[in-house]
């Protein structure tokens, strides 16, 4: 862990349509750190991830977000991605007719182009994809299938993880990465994610249950309720919540 800030969120407020969901949210994440945000269902955890990624329909009403010192909120969705922001989505969407390979090749080359790197050679890319896929139990056959179409919950999350390992973002948000996973798949996915951890990147793990945090062990845990962080602590806080639930935080209001 260093003290170089990667993501700095200051007094962020945001709404969906007329409803204020995020209210005065503050958090700084340094390089090399893994933070977990835990909170009850409906607290707006996913909203936070969409706001950070710039999804349309989520309006920032106040506050600042700096990513690697740059103003994140002024960037387009794809610019944020190319700068190294990656979201493992809770419900990855199906795109009929677009093979996983084709999709990922476009993604990789769009990002390389942004960083003035030459396009990856197709043969090299395929080799890389197959190797990384194998580690996650993704067959060559699955790589040819249209992205997420007819994939099981586990397959979708493996594919999200594969994209993480191929794109190697500097900052990854995991939005309920364990939903839809059985124990074995959870192990494969979390191992894949852990292997990507290093001193220069960081992660934000958004989860309702502590279960995922046994495998992806965070440095900091924050409890999120009513649009902002109500309590912060170390990994032991997760165990505490598992035991006592969120009641103590939600009844505050």
């Amino acid at each position, binding site marked *: 862990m260093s003290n170089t800030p990667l993501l700095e969120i200051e007094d962020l407020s945001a709404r969906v349509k007329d409803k204020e969901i995020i209210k005065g949210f503050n958090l700084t994440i340094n390089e090399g750190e893994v933070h977990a945000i835990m909170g009850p269902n409906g607290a707006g955890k996913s909203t936070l991830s969409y706001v950070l*990624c710039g*999804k*349309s*329909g989520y309006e920032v009403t106040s506050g600042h977000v700096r990513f690697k010192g740059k103003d994140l909120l002024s960037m*387009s*969705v*794809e610019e944020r*991605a*190319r700068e190294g922001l*990656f*979201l493992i*989505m809770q419900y*990855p*969407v199906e*795109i*009929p*007719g*677009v093979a996983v390979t*084709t*999709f*990922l090749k*476009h*993604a990789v080359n*769009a*990002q390389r182009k*942004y960083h003035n790197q030459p396009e990856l050679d197709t043969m090299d890319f395929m080799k890389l994809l197959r190797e990384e896929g194998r580690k996650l139990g993704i067959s060559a056959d699955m790589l040819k299938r*249209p992205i997420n179409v007819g994939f099981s919950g586990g397959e979708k999350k493996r594919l999200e993880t594969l*994209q993480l390992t191929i*794109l190697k973002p500097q900052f990854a948000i995991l939005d309920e990465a364990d939903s839809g996973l059985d124990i074995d798949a959870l192990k494969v996915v979390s191992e894949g994610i852990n292997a990507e951890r290093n001193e220069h990147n960081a992660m934000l793990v958004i989860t309702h249950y502590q279960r995922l945090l046994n495998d992806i062990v965070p440095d900091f845990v924050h409890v999120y309720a009513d649009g902002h962080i109500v309590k912060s602590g170390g990994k032991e806080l997760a165990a505490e919540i598992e035991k006592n639930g969120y009641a103590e935080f939600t009844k505050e209001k």
Partner: protein
Amino acid sequence: MTEKKQTPEIADESGDKYKYGFVTDIATESAPKGLNEEIIRLISGKKQEPAWLLDFRLRAFNYWQNMKEPTWAKLNYDKIDYQDLYYYAAPKQKVSPKSLDEIDPKLLATYEKLGIPLKEQEILSGVVAVDAVFDSVSVATTYRAKLAEKGIIFCSISEAVREHPDLVQKYLGTVVPYTDNFFASLNSAVFTDGSFVYIPKGVKCPMELSTYFRINAQNTGQFERTLIVADDESYVSYLEGCTAPQRDENQLHAAIVEIVVLDNAEVKYSTVQNWYPGDKDGKGGVYNFVTKRAACRGKNAKISWTQVETGSAVTWKYPSCVLQGDNSVGEFYSVALTNNYQQADTGTKMIHIGKNTTSKIISKGISAGHSNQTYRGLVRVSPNADNARNYSQCDSLLIGQNCGSHTVPYVENRNKSAVLEHEATTSKISDEQLFYCRQRGIDEETAVSLIVNGFCKEVMQHLPLEFAIEAAKLINISLEGSVG
């Protein structure tokens, strides 16, 4: 594109992506404007046609005079003044060319610019033979000698009338009679050229045959007529491409394609239609009224239509399969993409007559901008067509808020043993799909093109490889400006 400056009536190129919009400055010979018996006699005379063909034309003309332009299609366009058109325009040539060396170099240059090399030695490994039709007249047909070794006839229809009159007379108008419909009657009266293909018994055509249509002259209707005959046990794959200059006025194109497929023969007909679609405000563009039909006359005959339609201001086109032979098979794979103010009413007809006939329809319509698109299809099973099978799938994809998409499937079943399936979907490119792509770093325009190409994949894979690449590029170009 210096040619453009010479003719002021060419649409301004600003904001337009149509790269085939240039005009070739070439001397043409044309008959006076208007349509009457005299003009028809003149066309027939120019082509030194036999009496039976002139008679066919005149009968068609007389019939047409009592017909009304169809209005059932979901299309809106200004009334066409059929007397204000030229019906004959041909590049001036002293003698008909014996070889490519005798062809006006400006014509050769035009086709080169369109990416259609006519010089045989320049065509890679000779996988495609080309018939080039310029303003209704066939100007060059390549690889004829090589094809002739196998007994394959590939030439302009005018030449076929002279050289192979029996074959032409035997089949012309037998699939699309001159009484068929308004535009077919018009074409039968005034058609000027087109391609003729005959594949003899047992011959598998060793290369793709291709016709490349080009409208150049102004105020000139284009009426080509293509006739393909696949004799017993034969096979041919045929490609058709079309482009036109960019003009502010509308150009009329009313073609006929007739295909006869005999016992155990197979014809694969692929079209990439890229006539000028008009500008972004809907000015100009080609009116495309085409009758395409294949008759599977023999047992186990097979016809497969694949079309990618991105051009034309107005499209009225229903490539059809008449499944007469027992066990014959008809297939229709279509991608139609409309943008800006384009209108397309297109689909197919599957007429089951023989026993155990099967047909398949896969139609993908993409509407963007202010365009309007209709899938119109007919599946008819005759009383004797025992065990007929049809599967139809019509999917529509909408881009933006201002376009329209309609599906009109007609089914007429007169045989209890028939099994007919129809599936239809309409979808929009969802915000979720766009967000997913963009979150991985893919820009919005590329994301749309990825999603659209994915949507069309089932159809595109039926195109010959080089054509499929070309078609995918064309779809991307046609989509430009449809997002944001």
